[in-house]
């Protein structure tokens, strides 16, 4: 079956819409994931394929080309592999970090990458459906314009649905005062660790930074009490500021506040607060709060 030039333009336009949607979510920020440029290119290309799958599916269905549709659905299977590939890659690299990401954080990152490919599929599918549905009613220009608005609406809606939160949504972060009582190190009044060596005590007092993470409510306390979430925070701090020697955190049973001590290579308290504030809130902790009637992420 030959493809009409008009249909080819429709498919290309829908593919472009899905691709742009995926591209807009592919940020190279301070977390440096995906890595740049190779990791970035890999995800961009997978996003392009996902968009093409979404764009071709409706014309194939209209042409009653069921074999093509079957193959397109087989392509969906590969997007599930994206999660596995991303997870296994991050798990493998985790051994190279001084302080590992941990399984919970890796799972969250891998799921995000998978879901964003589905976003590209839905946006391109919406675009092509809008073009074809309005084709017989509106003029060509009007039809394309309507499809563009539909694509933007689909992007905004799905992005709002899958958008993750960060630590600053559930906790206030501030610098705490490091002190020693006998051989125990405290951040304000929170016991953090026992330090046996005098040289280490001196190093912590000279170069360490104490941080206080204060949950905003009861459910937020549960969220921050998750080992995976705390590991994610400690990982980002140690990876971005560098770890000279030591990082440890402990929760205060009375208040639920978390005290953390780190001896970073770059001693920048403001950067440290910024890093902690922007650590993603893991999906597993959000689920915990919702199942107990929490109002987090509810609007």
């Amino acid at each position, binding site marked *: 079956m030959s493809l009409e030039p008009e249909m080819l333009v429709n498919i290309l336009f829908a593919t472009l819409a899905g691709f742009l949607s995926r591209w807009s979510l592919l940020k190279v920020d301070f977390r440096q994931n995906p890595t740049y440029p190779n990791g970035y290119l890999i995800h961009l290309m997978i996003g392009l394929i996902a968009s093409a799958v979404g764009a071709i599916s409706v014309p194939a269905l209209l042409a009653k080309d069921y074999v093509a549709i079957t193959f397109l659905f087989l392509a969906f299977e590969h997007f599930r592999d994206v999660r596995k590939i991303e997870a296994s890659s991050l798990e493998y690299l985790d051994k190279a970090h001084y302080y590992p990401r941990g399984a919970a954080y890796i799972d969250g990152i891998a799921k995000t990458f998978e879901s964003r490919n589905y976003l590209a599929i839905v946006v391109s599918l919406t675009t092509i459906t809008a073009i074809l549905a309005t084709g017989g009613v509106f003029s060509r220009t009007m039809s394309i314009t309507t499809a563009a608005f539909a694509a933007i609406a689909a992007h905004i809606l799905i992005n709002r649905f899958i958008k993750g939160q960060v630590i600053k949504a559930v906790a206030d972060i501030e610098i705490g005062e490091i002190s020693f009582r*006998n*051989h125990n190190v405290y951040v304000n009044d929170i016991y953090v660790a*026992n*330090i*046996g*060596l005098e*040289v*280490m005590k001196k190093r912590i007092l000279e170069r360490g930074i104490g941080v206080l993470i204060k949950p905003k409510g009861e459910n937020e306390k549960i969220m921050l009490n998750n080992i995976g979430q705390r590991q994610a925070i400690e990982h980002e701090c140690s990876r971005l500021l560098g770890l000279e020697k030591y990082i440890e955190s402990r929760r205060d049973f009375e208040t639920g506040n978390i005290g953390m001590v780190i001896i970073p290579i770059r001693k920048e308290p403001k950067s440290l607060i910024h890093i902690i504030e922007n650590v993603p809130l893991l999906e597993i902790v959000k689920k915990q709060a919702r199942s107990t009637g929490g109002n987090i992420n509810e609007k």
Partner: protein
Amino acid sequence: MRNNHILIAVGLNRDLAENVPLILAENEEQLQTISSELGRILEGNVCRLANGLVIITAPGR
């Protein structure tokens, strides 16, 4: 959960540790040096108790 095991103790007084390998130091300076060396060799955490006894701990395997 992380469970730490006591690998060895370092102290100034023989009576402070039982059923744990103990290295006796002659004075505070030597105690600090030995503890630091042991911490590095055994890749463990160096902790000090209120009675002055130093213990080297490591995650249980």
